[in-house]
Protein backbone atom coordinates (compact mmCIF):
# COMPACT_ATOMS: atom_id res chain seq x y z
CA UNK A 1 0.00 0.00 0.00
CA UNK A 2 1.22 3.48 -0.81
CA UNK A 3 2.33 4.98 2.50
CA UNK A 4 1.97 8.53 1.28
CA UNK A 5 -1.64 8.20 0.15
CA UNK A 6 -4.42 10.03 1.97
CA UNK A 7 -6.29 6.83 2.77
CA UNK A 8 -3.24 5.33 4.44
CA UNK A 9 -2.65 8.52 6.43
CA UNK A 10 -6.22 8.70 7.65
CA UNK A 11 -6.36 5.03 8.62
CA UNK A 12 -3.00 5.41 10.34
CA UNK A 13 -4.25 8.32 12.42
CA UNK A 14 -7.48 6.54 13.38
CA UNK A 15 -5.64 3.41 14.51
CA UNK A 16 -3.08 5.45 16.40
CA UNK A 17 -5.71 7.49 18.25
CA UNK A 18 -7.68 4.39 19.21
CA UNK A 19 -4.57 2.60 20.51
CA UNK A 20 -3.29 5.59 22.49
CA UNK A 21 -6.80 6.38 23.77
CA UNK A 22 -7.25 2.82 25.00
CA UNK A 23 -3.85 2.88 26.72
CA UNK A 24 -4.67 6.15 28.50
CA UNK A 25 -8.15 5.01 29.52
CA UNK A 26 -6.68 1.82 30.94
CA UNK A 27 -4.05 3.72 32.97
CA UNK A 28 -6.61 6.17 34.26
CA UNK A 29 -9.06 3.49 35.38
CA UNK A 30 -6.49 1.24 36.99
CA UNK A 31 -4.90 4.08 38.98
CA UNK A 32 -8.08 5.95 39.94
CA UNK A 33 -8.54 4.39 43.40
CA UNK A 34 -4.99 5.11 44.46
CA UNK A 35 -5.16 8.69 43.18
CA UNK A 36 -8.43 9.31 45.04
CA UNK A 37 -6.93 7.89 48.22
CA UNK A 38 -3.99 10.28 47.82
CA UNK A 39 -6.24 13.28 47.20
CA UNK A 40 -8.39 12.38 50.23
CA UNK A 41 -5.33 12.01 52.44
CA UNK A 42 -4.13 15.40 51.27
CA UNK A 43 -7.50 16.96 52.11
CA UNK A 44 -7.34 15.38 55.58
CA UNK A 45 -3.85 16.81 56.02
CA UNK A 46 -5.16 20.28 55.12
CA UNK A 47 -8.11 19.96 57.51
CA UNK A 48 -5.76 18.98 60.33
CA UNK A 49 -3.43 21.84 59.40
CA UNK A 50 -6.29 24.26 60.00
CA UNK A 51 -6.41 23.17 63.64
CA UNK A 52 -2.63 23.64 63.81
CA UNK A 53 -1.86 19.93 63.80
CA UNK A 54 0.84 18.54 61.59
CA UNK A 55 1.22 14.78 61.27
CA UNK A 56 3.56 12.63 59.19
CA UNK A 57 2.08 11.26 55.98
CA UNK A 58 1.63 7.69 57.21
CA UNK A 59 -0.47 8.70 60.21
CA UNK A 60 -2.81 11.22 58.56
CA UNK A 61 -5.84 8.92 58.22
CA UNK A 62 -5.40 7.56 61.73
CA UNK A 63 -5.08 11.03 63.33
CA UNK A 64 -7.98 12.30 61.24
CA UNK A 65 -10.28 9.51 62.45
CA UNK A 66 -9.22 10.21 66.03
CA UNK A 67 -9.57 14.01 65.98
CA UNK A 68 -12.43 14.70 63.58
CA UNK A 69 -15.22 13.32 65.72
CA UNK A 70 -18.15 14.42 63.60
CA UNK A 71 -18.93 16.13 60.33
CA UNK A 72 -22.20 17.49 59.02
CA UNK A 73 -23.67 19.82 56.41
CA UNK A 74 -25.29 23.16 57.23
CA UNK A 75 -27.32 25.62 55.16
CA UNK A 76 -27.16 29.40 55.34
CA UNK A 77 -29.86 29.47 58.05
CA UNK A 78 -27.48 27.61 60.30
CA UNK A 79 -29.61 24.42 60.29
CA UNK A 80 -28.03 21.04 59.93
CA UNK A 81 -29.14 19.42 56.68
CA UNK A 82 -29.78 15.79 57.46
CA UNK A 83 -30.50 14.29 54.06
CA UNK A 84 -27.47 15.88 52.39
CA UNK A 85 -24.47 13.96 51.19
CA UNK A 86 -21.43 13.25 53.32
CA UNK A 87 -19.67 16.48 54.35
CA UNK A 88 -16.28 15.25 53.15
CA UNK A 89 -17.51 14.67 49.60
CA UNK A 90 -19.16 18.09 49.19
CA UNK A 91 -17.60 20.00 46.34
CA UNK A 92 -16.88 23.38 47.91
CA UNK A 93 -15.76 24.75 44.53
CA UNK A 94 -19.27 24.23 43.11
CA UNK A 95 -21.07 25.34 46.26
CA UNK A 96 -19.09 28.58 46.54
CA UNK A 97 -20.57 29.72 43.22
CA UNK A 98 -24.17 29.12 44.33
CA UNK A 99 -26.30 31.90 45.83
CA UNK A 100 -25.63 32.14 49.56
CA UNK A 101 -29.09 30.91 50.61
CA UNK A 102 -28.88 27.80 48.42
CA UNK A 103 -25.52 26.59 49.62
CA UNK A 104 -24.67 23.37 51.40
CA UNK A 105 -21.58 23.84 53.53
CA UNK A 106 -19.51 21.18 55.25
CA UNK A 107 -18.59 21.55 58.91
CA UNK A 108 -16.08 19.28 60.59
CA UNK A 109 -16.18 18.92 64.33
CA UNK A 110 -12.75 18.42 65.75
CA UNK A 111 -12.05 17.34 69.34
CA UNK A 112 -8.50 18.22 70.26
CA UNK A 113 -6.41 16.06 72.63
CA UNK A 114 -7.09 18.59 75.44
CA UNK A 115 -10.84 18.00 75.03
CA UNK A 116 -11.74 21.35 73.48
CA UNK A 117 -14.01 21.33 70.42
CA UNK A 118 -13.28 23.27 67.24
CA UNK A 119 -15.36 23.59 64.08
CA UNK A 120 -13.63 23.59 60.69
CA UNK A 121 -15.19 25.57 57.84
CA UNK A 122 -14.29 25.28 54.13
CA UNK A 123 -13.47 28.06 51.68
CA UNK A 124 -12.84 28.21 47.95
CA UNK A 125 -12.07 31.21 45.75
CA UNK A 126 -9.88 32.64 43.03
CA UNK A 127 -6.35 34.01 43.26
CA UNK A 128 -4.39 35.62 40.47
CA UNK A 129 -3.56 32.61 38.28
CA UNK A 130 -5.92 29.94 39.51
CA UNK A 131 -8.07 28.68 42.34
CA UNK A 132 -7.20 29.16 45.98
CA UNK A 133 -8.86 27.34 48.86
CA UNK A 134 -8.57 27.04 52.58
CA UNK A 135 -9.97 25.88 55.88
CA UNK A 136 -10.61 27.92 58.99
CA UNK A 137 -11.26 26.45 62.41
CA UNK A 138 -13.28 28.34 65.03
CA UNK A 139 -13.61 27.87 68.75
CA UNK A 140 -16.65 26.10 70.17
CA UNK A 141 -18.41 29.44 70.79
CA UNK A 142 -18.21 30.22 67.06
CA UNK A 143 -16.71 33.69 67.39
CA UNK A 144 -12.95 33.35 67.34
CA UNK A 145 -10.71 31.77 64.73
CA UNK A 146 -8.52 29.05 66.17
CA UNK A 147 -6.42 28.35 63.09
CA UNK A 148 -6.43 28.63 59.32
CA UNK A 149 -4.88 26.91 56.35
CA UNK A 150 -4.67 28.23 52.80
CA UNK A 151 -3.55 26.55 49.60
CA UNK A 152 -3.33 27.50 45.96
CA UNK A 153 -2.84 25.86 42.62
CA UNK A 154 -0.48 28.16 40.77
CA UNK A 155 0.17 31.48 42.48
CA UNK A 156 3.56 33.09 41.91
CA UNK A 157 6.23 31.54 44.16
CA UNK A 158 7.56 34.08 46.65
CA UNK A 159 4.61 36.43 46.08
CA UNK A 160 1.03 35.15 46.00
CA UNK A 161 2.14 31.65 46.89
CA UNK A 162 3.15 32.97 50.35
CA UNK A 163 -0.49 32.55 51.46
CA UNK A 164 0.20 28.87 52.10
CA UNK A 165 3.00 29.69 54.55
CA UNK A 166 2.23 29.69 58.28
CA UNK A 167 3.55 33.26 58.41
CA UNK A 168 0.37 34.34 56.63
CA UNK A 169 -2.18 31.84 57.93
CA UNK A 170 -1.06 32.10 61.59
CA UNK A 171 -2.17 35.73 61.60
CA UNK A 172 -5.78 34.55 61.61
CA UNK A 173 -5.48 32.95 65.04
CA UNK A 174 -7.54 34.87 67.58
CA UNK A 175 -9.31 37.03 65.01
CA UNK A 176 -13.07 37.37 65.48
CA UNK A 177 -15.71 36.32 62.95
CA UNK A 178 -18.65 37.40 65.14
CA UNK A 179 -18.40 40.89 66.61
CA UNK A 180 -21.26 42.18 68.79
CA UNK A 181 -23.55 39.42 67.57
CA UNK A 182 -22.99 40.13 63.88
CA UNK A 183 -20.91 38.28 61.33
CA UNK A 184 -17.87 40.25 60.30
CA UNK A 185 -15.44 38.90 57.69
CA UNK A 186 -11.76 39.14 58.55
CA UNK A 187 -10.34 41.70 56.15
CA UNK A 188 -7.03 41.18 54.35
CA UNK A 189 -5.42 44.60 54.02
CA UNK A 190 -2.25 45.78 52.39
CA UNK A 191 0.50 46.11 55.02
CA UNK A 192 0.58 49.71 56.21
CA UNK A 193 -2.86 50.64 54.93
CA UNK A 194 -5.54 51.77 57.41
CA UNK A 195 -7.64 48.91 58.73
CA UNK A 196 -11.41 48.84 58.12
CA UNK A 197 -13.54 50.03 61.05
CA UNK A 198 -15.10 47.50 63.36
CA UNK A 199 -13.58 44.47 61.65
CA UNK A 200 -10.65 42.32 62.57
CA UNK A 201 -7.97 42.24 59.89
CA UNK A 202 -4.72 40.58 58.87
CA UNK A 203 -1.85 41.84 56.74
CA UNK A 204 -1.86 40.77 53.12
CA UNK A 205 1.19 39.45 51.30
CA UNK A 206 3.57 42.09 49.95
CA UNK A 207 3.76 41.75 46.21
CA UNK A 208 0.77 39.45 46.21
CA UNK A 209 -1.97 42.06 46.22
CA UNK A 210 -4.39 40.28 43.89
CA UNK A 211 -3.95 36.95 45.67
CA UNK A 212 -4.44 38.71 49.04
CA UNK A 213 -7.61 40.36 47.76
CA UNK A 214 -8.70 36.94 46.52
CA UNK A 215 -8.26 35.57 50.04
CA UNK A 216 -10.30 38.46 51.47
CA UNK A 217 -13.07 37.93 48.92
CA UNK A 218 -13.00 34.18 49.54
CA UNK A 219 -13.40 34.68 53.30
CA UNK A 220 -16.31 37.04 52.79
CA UNK A 221 -18.02 34.86 50.17
CA UNK A 222 -17.53 31.51 51.86
CA UNK A 223 -17.65 32.29 55.57
CA UNK A 224 -20.55 34.78 55.55
CA UNK A 225 -23.10 32.00 54.79
CA UNK A 226 -21.75 30.20 57.86
CA UNK A 227 -22.73 33.32 59.88
CA UNK A 228 -26.03 31.97 61.21
CA UNK A 229 -24.43 28.67 62.11
CA UNK A 230 -21.68 30.46 64.01
CA UNK A 231 -24.20 32.65 65.82
CA UNK A 232 -26.20 29.58 66.85
CA UNK A 233 -23.02 28.15 68.35
CA UNK A 234 -22.54 31.33 70.35
CA UNK A 235 -26.13 31.19 71.65
CA UNK A 236 -25.92 27.54 72.66
CA UNK A 237 -22.81 28.09 74.70
Amino acid at each position, binding site marked *: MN*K*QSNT*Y*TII*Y*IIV*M*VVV*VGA*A*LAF*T*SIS*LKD*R*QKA*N*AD*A*DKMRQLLASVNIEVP*KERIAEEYDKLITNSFVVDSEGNIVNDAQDAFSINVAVQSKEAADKRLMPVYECTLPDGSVKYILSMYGAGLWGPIWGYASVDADGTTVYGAYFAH*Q*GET*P*GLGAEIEKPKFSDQFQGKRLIIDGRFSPIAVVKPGMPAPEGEDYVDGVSGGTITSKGVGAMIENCLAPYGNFLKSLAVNK
Partner: protein
Amino acid sequence: MSNKSVFFNPFSKNNPVIVQILGICSVLAVTVKLEPAIVMSLSVIAVLAFSNVIISLIRNTIPTNIRIIVQLVVVAGLVVIVSQLLEAYAYDVSKQLSVFIGLIITNCILMGRLEAFAMANKPWPSFLDGVGNGIGYAIILVIVGFFRELLGSGTLLGYQVVPDCFYEAGYVNNGLMILPPMALVTVACIIWVHRSFNRDLQEK
Protein backbone atom coordinates in the same frame (compact mmCIF):
# COMPACT_ATOMS: atom_id res chain seq x y z
CA MET B 1 28.37 5.62 15.26
CA SER B 2 28.93 2.78 17.70
CA ASN B 3 26.33 2.00 20.34
CA LYS B 4 28.83 3.03 22.96
CA SER B 5 29.27 6.54 21.62
CA VAL B 6 25.51 6.83 21.07
CA PHE B 7 25.07 6.19 24.78
CA PHE B 8 27.99 8.15 26.22
CA ASN B 9 28.27 11.17 23.91
CA PRO B 10 25.26 13.00 25.40
CA PHE B 11 26.89 12.85 28.85
CA SER B 12 29.45 15.47 28.00
CA LYS B 13 30.59 16.31 24.44
CA ASN B 14 27.05 16.39 23.07
CA ASN B 15 25.10 17.15 26.24
CA PRO B 16 21.56 18.26 25.38
CA VAL B 17 21.44 21.00 28.02
CA ILE B 18 24.89 22.57 28.17
CA VAL B 19 26.04 21.97 24.59
CA GLN B 20 22.85 21.94 22.54
CA ILE B 21 21.12 24.32 25.02
CA LEU B 22 17.83 22.41 24.86
CA GLY B 23 15.30 21.90 27.65
CA ILE B 24 16.45 24.97 29.56
CA CYS B 25 12.98 25.98 30.77
CA SER B 26 12.50 22.89 32.91
CA VAL B 27 16.01 23.33 34.30
CA LEU B 28 14.90 26.73 35.60
CA ALA B 29 11.61 25.50 36.94
CA VAL B 30 12.24 22.25 38.81
CA THR B 31 15.69 22.69 40.33
CA VAL B 32 14.86 24.71 43.46
CA LYS B 33 15.06 21.45 45.40
CA LEU B 34 17.00 18.30 44.63
CA GLU B 35 14.08 15.88 44.99
CA PRO B 36 11.82 17.26 42.22
CA ALA B 37 14.91 17.58 40.03
CA ILE B 38 15.62 13.87 40.44
CA VAL B 39 12.00 12.86 39.83
CA MET B 40 11.84 15.11 36.77
CA SER B 41 15.08 13.54 35.48
CA LEU B 42 13.74 10.02 35.92
CA SER B 43 10.49 11.00 34.19
CA VAL B 44 12.35 12.49 31.25
CA ILE B 45 14.65 9.46 30.96
CA ALA B 46 11.65 7.13 30.95
CA VAL B 47 9.62 9.15 28.46
CA LEU B 48 12.62 9.74 26.19
CA ALA B 49 13.71 6.10 26.14
CA PHE B 50 10.26 4.67 25.52
CA SER B 51 9.19 7.24 22.95
CA ASN B 52 12.46 6.68 21.09
CA VAL B 53 11.85 2.92 21.04
CA ILE B 54 8.21 3.23 20.00
CA ILE B 55 8.94 5.71 17.23
CA SER B 56 11.89 3.61 16.07
CA LEU B 57 9.68 0.49 15.95
CA ILE B 58 7.00 2.16 13.84
CA ARG B 59 9.35 4.45 11.89
CA ASN B 60 8.85 2.62 8.61
CA THR B 61 5.06 2.81 8.80
CA ILE B 62 4.74 6.51 9.63
CA PRO B 63 3.52 8.63 6.69
CA THR B 64 6.10 11.42 6.29
CA ASN B 65 3.58 14.25 6.17
CA ILE B 66 2.18 13.49 9.65
CA ARG B 67 5.36 12.25 11.34
CA ILE B 68 5.59 15.17 13.78
CA ILE B 69 1.98 14.60 14.83
CA VAL B 70 2.67 10.91 15.40
CA GLN B 71 5.74 11.76 17.47
CA LEU B 72 3.74 14.24 19.53
CA VAL B 73 0.93 11.78 20.18
CA VAL B 74 3.39 9.12 21.34
CA VAL B 75 5.19 11.58 23.63
CA ALA B 76 1.96 13.07 24.97
CA GLY B 77 0.53 9.62 25.67
CA LEU B 78 3.65 8.56 27.58
CA VAL B 79 3.76 11.83 29.52
CA VAL B 80 0.15 11.47 30.63
CA ILE B 81 0.87 7.92 31.77
CA VAL B 82 3.93 9.09 33.75
CA SER B 83 1.97 11.92 35.34
CA GLN B 84 -0.87 9.53 36.31
CA LEU B 85 1.65 7.13 37.82
CA LEU B 86 3.24 9.93 39.85
CA GLU B 87 -0.17 11.06 41.06
CA ALA B 88 -0.85 7.54 42.27
CA TYR B 89 2.54 6.67 43.76
CA ALA B 90 4.32 9.97 44.51
CA TYR B 91 1.51 12.42 45.23
CA ASP B 92 3.60 15.10 46.96
CA VAL B 93 6.13 15.21 44.16
CA SER B 94 3.42 15.28 41.51
CA LYS B 95 1.86 18.25 43.28
CA GLN B 96 5.23 20.02 43.34
CA LEU B 97 6.03 19.30 39.70
CA SER B 98 2.40 19.92 38.66
CA VAL B 99 2.51 21.44 35.20
CA PHE B 100 6.14 20.64 34.49
CA ILE B 101 5.47 16.94 33.98
CA GLY B 102 2.90 17.92 31.36
CA LEU B 103 5.45 20.26 29.84
CA ILE B 104 7.82 17.36 29.15
CA ILE B 105 5.74 17.10 25.96
CA THR B 106 7.17 20.39 24.78
CA ASN B 107 10.72 19.64 25.95
CA CYS B 108 12.82 20.23 22.84
CA ILE B 109 15.15 17.35 23.73
CA LEU B 110 12.36 14.87 23.06
CA MET B 111 11.27 16.11 19.67
CA GLY B 112 14.91 16.59 18.75
CA ARG B 113 15.88 13.01 19.55
CA LEU B 114 12.79 11.53 17.92
CA GLU B 115 13.19 13.49 14.70
CA ALA B 116 16.98 13.29 14.49
CA PHE B 117 17.67 9.81 15.80
CA ALA B 118 14.70 7.47 16.32
CA MET B 119 13.23 8.13 12.86
CA ALA B 120 16.41 6.80 11.24
CA ASN B 121 17.72 4.12 13.61
CA LYS B 122 16.85 0.68 14.92
CA PRO B 123 15.08 0.29 18.32
CA TRP B 124 18.13 -0.76 20.39
CA PRO B 125 20.39 2.18 19.43
CA SER B 126 17.34 4.44 19.79
CA PHE B 127 16.79 3.16 23.31
CA LEU B 128 20.44 3.82 24.17
CA ASP B 129 20.23 7.26 22.61
CA GLY B 130 17.10 8.05 24.65
CA VAL B 131 18.59 6.86 27.94
CA GLY B 132 21.90 8.57 27.18
CA ASN B 133 20.32 11.92 26.42
CA GLY B 134 18.00 11.55 29.40
CA ILE B 135 20.99 10.95 31.67
CA GLY B 136 22.82 13.89 30.08
CA TYR B 137 19.82 16.05 30.98
CA ALA B 138 19.62 14.48 34.44
CA ILE B 139 23.28 15.19 35.26
CA ILE B 140 22.79 18.91 34.72
CA LEU B 141 19.46 18.99 36.54
CA VAL B 142 20.94 17.25 39.58
CA ILE B 143 24.03 19.49 39.67
CA VAL B 144 21.89 22.63 39.45
CA GLY B 145 19.40 21.27 41.99
CA PHE B 146 22.22 20.35 44.36
CA PHE B 147 23.72 23.84 44.41
CA ARG B 148 20.40 25.66 44.50
CA GLU B 149 19.04 23.64 47.41
CA LEU B 150 22.34 23.71 49.32
CA LEU B 151 22.90 27.45 48.98
CA GLY B 152 19.25 28.53 48.85
CA SER B 153 17.74 26.44 51.63
CA GLY B 154 20.72 24.93 53.45
CA THR B 155 19.25 21.44 52.96
CA LEU B 156 19.74 18.46 50.63
CA LEU B 157 16.75 16.25 49.77
CA GLY B 158 14.97 18.03 52.62
CA TYR B 159 17.60 17.19 55.26
CA GLN B 160 19.43 20.06 56.85
CA VAL B 161 23.13 19.94 55.99
CA VAL B 162 24.26 23.43 57.01
CA PRO B 163 24.76 23.10 60.77
CA ASP B 164 22.86 25.40 63.12
CA CYS B 165 26.10 26.89 64.47
CA PHE B 166 26.72 28.40 61.02
CA TYR B 167 23.41 30.26 61.24
CA GLU B 168 24.21 31.39 64.77
CA ALA B 169 27.54 32.71 63.49
CA GLY B 170 25.64 34.88 61.03
CA TYR B 171 25.39 32.67 57.92
CA VAL B 172 22.24 33.36 55.89
CA ASN B 173 20.68 31.25 53.16
CA ASN B 174 20.94 32.93 49.79
CA GLY B 175 17.32 33.67 48.88
CA LEU B 176 18.35 34.56 45.35
CA MET B 177 19.26 30.91 44.69
CA ILE B 178 15.60 29.96 45.03
CA LEU B 179 14.57 32.29 42.21
CA PRO B 180 14.71 31.15 38.55
CA PRO B 181 17.46 33.56 37.38
CA MET B 182 20.05 31.79 39.54
CA ALA B 183 19.33 28.54 37.71
CA LEU B 184 20.45 30.26 34.52
CA VAL B 185 23.56 31.57 36.23
CA THR B 186 24.31 28.10 37.63
CA VAL B 187 23.86 26.52 34.19
CA ALA B 188 26.14 29.20 32.75
CA CYS B 189 28.80 28.36 35.33
CA ILE B 190 28.54 24.67 34.43
CA ILE B 191 28.92 25.53 30.74
CA TRP B 192 31.95 27.68 31.58
CA VAL B 193 33.68 24.90 33.53
CA HIS B 194 32.71 22.32 30.91
CA ARG B 195 34.08 24.33 28.00
CA SER B 196 37.29 25.16 29.77
CA PHE B 197 37.92 21.39 29.92
CA ASN B 198 36.74 20.79 26.34
CA ARG B 199 38.63 23.29 24.24
CA ASP B 200 37.26 21.88 20.98
CA LEU B 201 33.78 23.11 21.99
CA GLN B 202 34.92 26.72 22.31
CA GLU B 203 33.88 29.05 19.53
CA LYS B 204 36.79 30.79 17.77
